[in-house]
């Protein structure tokens, strides 16, 4: 995951642009297909979570098609609509993830962390979003501001999964490592742009200019999508590989004696 995402940092700008233009849709479509396949092994809320994740990943492909950019410029209201639909998929995915998460088991420290993340998110938004108003047409100010706000909401909704895993790692480790990887990928994809603007000092309105240039932001996004895709692949294969491990241990191939 580190190599394909880090490689764009090393490539010359022109090649790096092409590389990211190919890699983004490729990894996203792979993730969408895998998520649908994972959905097929579950039912109820967990199936819904993976279906909406798949739709989110699929819809995320469209902003990466250069040939559609002319169309986007001509119909900005459709871009906002597409963004809203895409985010709606992620919010629905997070909603179902939250429904299957045993939030009652989160410790007090965990809740403090969630509260802190919420506060930090709001502070970042309050600091970075108002300057964007100069660039938005008046009709899009509210819908686009809400999308940034949704970033915080999604992170808050998904944090319990990571916290529970961290908590249980010290105990029986019953929480899924692969699911936590997928969720970490989603969280990273949501916060990548904020991390980038905070660390680089570039204002939020200028961040889209570095897409498809082989920037650190490209690398971060690519890494987060790869994290999701690899997590989904291993999640799908877990039954088979887990059983192989038992077979290996029984045939004396394990270190455990």
């Amino acid at each position, binding site marked *: 995951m580190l190599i394909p995402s880090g490689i764009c940092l090393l490539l010359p700008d022109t090649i790096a642009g092409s590389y990211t233009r190919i890699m983004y849709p490729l990894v996203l479509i792979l993730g969408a297909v895998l998520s649908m396949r994972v959905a097929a092994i579950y039912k*109820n809320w967990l199936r819904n979570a993976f279906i909406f994740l798949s739709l989110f990943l699929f819809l995320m492909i469209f902003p990466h098609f250069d040939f559609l950019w002319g169309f986007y410029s001509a119909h900005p209201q459709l871009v906002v609509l597409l963004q809203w639909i895409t985010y709606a998929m992620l919010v629905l995915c997070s909603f179902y993830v939250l429904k299957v998460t045993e939030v009652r088991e989160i410790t007090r420290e965990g809740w403090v962390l969630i509260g802190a993340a919420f506060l930090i998110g709001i502070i970042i938004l309050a600091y970075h979003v108002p300057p964007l108003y100069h660039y938005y047409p008046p009709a899009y100010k509210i819908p686009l501001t809400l999308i940034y706000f949704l970033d915080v909401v999604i992170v808050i909704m998904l944090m319990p999964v990571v916290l529970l895993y961290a908590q249980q790692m010290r105990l029986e480790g019953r929480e899924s490592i692969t699911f936590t990887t997928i969720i970490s990928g989603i969280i990273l994809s949501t916060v990548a742009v904020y991390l980038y603007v905070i660390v680089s000092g570039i204002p939020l309105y200028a961040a889209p200019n570095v897409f498809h240039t082989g920037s650190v932001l490209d690398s971060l996004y690519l890494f987060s999508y790869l994290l999701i895709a690899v997590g989904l692949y291993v999640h799908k294969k877990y039954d088979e590989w887990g059983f192989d*491990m*038992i077979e290996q*241990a029984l045939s004396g191939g394990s270190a455990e004696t």
Partner: protein
Amino acid sequence: MSAEREVGMEKLIDGVWAVFLDKLKKKDVPPARPAFGDELNLFVPQLRMLLPIYANPRFPVSIYTSSYLAARRNAYTVMRKLDMPPDFFWKFEFWTDERAFDVLSKVTNRIFREIMRTTKEGLLSVENASTDPEKIEILLTLDECVECFGIEANHPFCYYHAGTLTGIISALLGKELDGYETACCATGGDKCEFVIGLGRGGDELERYLNPEKIEFPLQKMVENALGGKSLRSLGNDADLRYYQLIILNSIITNPKVFRDSSYEVGVAYGKTLAQFLGRYYNKSEDELLDAISHYYQSLKHLQLDLNESADEVRAAEVAEISGLAQNEDFLGFLFGELEGLLTVATKGKMTYAGNAFEGNELVIKFKRQE
């Protein structure tokens, strides 16, 4: 009972499970007894389940609970020692029924069916698995169940296996589940059938664990055991360690009370058995001592050496303690049983007067009451 003693018992139980795992991994496990080996007639453990159930209405709850806890603890250890990821059954309640059935069958067959086949407890199968966030239901069957095979009774009574299988599935899924028996070979079923699940239990579990008086034909059972007719494809024997688990799980909650109550049950049984053996071997009371030795020998229970006055019994290869621990708490029933047998055989009231271990031999003293 002190927590220390309970921990000691738990360690012994865990030790027995560790041997099961070693056998599963095809490691060399030395036999617990040099002459009889690791097997004994399944009648012996059957009797040790049935008589306490008959005598004590709380026994089913006690054996179910302790075997559940022991199996849950040890099945988890087995999983970890076999490198099974702890999150293998993550969110099982959201799995599709097909996946739940396939994966659970595969794991159960590879590990626990194999263990139970090796110990001759029966042939375990997962028959069905249905999942739901509110309700999980898993149907297991145990063919040729060692606990009840060949017995006719008026109520299912495989409490040890109900507890053990529920404990195993609970460990696998990482959930507190309930389980009870819905069909039993003893009540006319082809196989023993156990329903294990989340949100199950309730009244059915309550009814199962609190049966009315269980009736069973004891004489026919002894006759079948001594007749040696093969009843199961797995044979008429059971693993010695399975028998030891039955005893350990029976006594863990209160060894002293269990030893004393087993002793009393043993005395009554010994007297009935002496009369039966006289008829079965066509021996007069004077000749019964030989029949008693032969009885224990043929069941591979233990080797007995009785002196003429019958005030001292030397026992070797005693199934209850071989390879386990020289602990007299496990032997209350045997002391009582011998007292009952000797009372009839000597036509005088014999009373258990103590025991001592001399190397691998158990010396049991009796005194005649005037």
